[in-house]
């Protein structure tokens, strides 16, 4: 191996380490036995996981986050896919403006969105309810769907949809039998990323959740503020595992599709 290649490997390795070490340290600490968060851990125990599983508030927060994530994934994917079809296949005045508008929540500062949503939802007495979080998370997750599904639509051949029409399928049946199946991997990815967007979102959860709707990230944030309970590290590790699982779903669906079309 030449010196240049070695340097490249070291450089790449350093970047990977920088990206992964924080997560690895938290995961390692979560298996430590001591009450004080300490690295390297002094031993191995499931103590903090047991603590998590036995804790009502932690479990309630987890279920809320999971339910919220699934609802957001479903709503954002449905709305975002229709929006992407309109933007990619449609021809109407102001198409580019609509596209920008739909993607804007992705670039707007979350804190500004959070404040705006708070002011918007407060008169409706929605702040502090899961509905507020559902609306807010769907808003920030939808642009991801628009981008991913839109890119997939641009790659598919529009004449396939014309063919379906000529063969006797109306708009809806063309959508159901042809358009959606051909972009299915993108829809799975979209749903997974929409889920994750909601599942690990903390700013909107703090602003809009209140005590009535404490998601997992919000509870963690409160836990960190008060005292550093080692249970937090166990929860963090679970959060990472769930995220990895979502990414695995995406990858598997892509591979499945490739082998079908190979």
């Amino acid at each position, binding site marked *: 191996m030449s010196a240049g290649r070695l340097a490249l490997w070291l450089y790449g390795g350093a970047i990977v380490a920088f990206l992964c070490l924080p997560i690895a340290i938290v995961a390692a600490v979560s298996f430590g036995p001591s009450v004080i968060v300490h690295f390297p851990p002094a031993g191995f125990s499931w103590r903090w996981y047991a603590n998590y599983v036995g804790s009502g508030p932690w479990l309630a927060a987890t279920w809320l986050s999971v339910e919220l994530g699934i609802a957001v994934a479903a709503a954002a994917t449905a709305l975002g896919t229709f929006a992407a079809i309109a933007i990619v296949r449609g021809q109407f005045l102001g198409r580019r403006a609509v596209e920008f508008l739909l993607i804007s929540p992705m670039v707007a500062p979350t804190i500004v969105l959070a404040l705006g949503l708070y002011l918007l939802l407060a008169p409706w007495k929605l702040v502090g309810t899961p509905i507020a979080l559902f609306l807010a998370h769907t808003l920030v997750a939808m642009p991801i769907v628009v981008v991913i599904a839109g890119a997939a639509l641009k790659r598919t*051949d529009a*004449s*396939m949809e*014309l*063919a*379906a*029409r*000529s*063969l*006797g*399928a*109306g708009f809806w*049946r063309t959508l159901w*039998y*042809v358009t959606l*199946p*051909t972009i*299915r991997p993108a829809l799975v990815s979209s749903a997974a990323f929409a889920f994750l967007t909601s599942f690990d979102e903390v700013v909107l959860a703090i602003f809009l959740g209140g005590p009535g709707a404490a998601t997992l990230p919000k509870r963690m944030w409160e836990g960190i503020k008060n005292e550093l309970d080692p249970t937090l590290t166990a929860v963090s590790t679970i959060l990472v595992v769930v995220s990895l699982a979502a990414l695995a779903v995406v990858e598997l669906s892509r591979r499945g599709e490739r082998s*079908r*079309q*190979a």
Partner: protein
Amino acid sequence: MADRPGISLSLRVLTKRYGRQTVVDAVELDVAAGEFLTLLGPSGSGKSSILMMVAGFTPPSSGDVVLGGRSVASLAPEKRNIGVVFQNYALFPHMTVAENVGFPLKMRRLPRAERDARVTETLARVGLAGFDGRLPAQLSGGQQQRVALARALVFAPGLLLMDEPLGALDRNLRERMKHEIRRIHAEFGVTVVYVTHDQEEALTMSDRIALLDRGRIAQLGTAREIYERPKTRFVAEFVGESSLIPGTLVEDGGRWWLDGSAGRLPVPREAAAFAGRSALLMLRPEKLRLVAAESRSGVPGTVIEAVFVGEALRTVVRIEGAAIVVKTATRAGEFRPIVGAPVRVDWDPADLAVLPGEERATADLA
């Protein structure tokens, strides 16, 4: 399907405008039931736009599409019962061959058993028996083409539209598919409107050709009429190779002549219609003969190029004021032109066509 004959198609002042640009300009066309009609033209001539309007994918700006005596201009594409074959086949990648071909029957809510029977039968008729379970990605280009044909014909439409269907195939396969499409047309008895920019496809496959130029039909006729009796310079130049010699038509001694830069050339009797006006004499390369310079017939010139192209010898002869392309057989004993040597080009006036001349008509250098 002889028991399901094709239906007639009529375009009535069909027009398509995009903003200030008119891509299809008041086209009038009648296609007879069971006919194979080709819309031929360069890109941007409006041929695909006509197809899109007939299929119902884009609404006409004005005018009407009449299918079997019934106006379909306001009908959604799924209600028109027209088969369409696309250049890239547009097969559904997530469906098997049988599912692709069965799709139009499923949309028509045919019972499963009947569907399967008709899919099997149609696949056999396009030469794809036994391919039912394959996915489109597992097929060759020619096979995909056949699936697309089967899918567009399985529901027995009266009209089949084909948009450059051979464009994506290699040369040999294209040759074979040309004949296959002709055979399928004859067997199914369906009316076909075929779009292509390839004049060879148009000439060999069509009952009639509509040659389009900037959104209008430049000429409508059989392959032979279009090739041998083009009405305009555009038609003569787009279809086949031709040499054009400008001049004025005059009568002298009971025969017609073209007076031009190349001297006085004999022309066919029909040219009388252009008497006294400027005209273009069109010479097709294979209708010309090369004769020795000492000969008394023909027009004198000099050989400036002679290329062996396989089935023929392609010779360019410079005569006074023009260059003429001559294609001669390569049989033994045929006259052999020598580059740089004098030669004479001869023809039978009946083999020529005369076109209206243009204001600034110039000799076309081939």
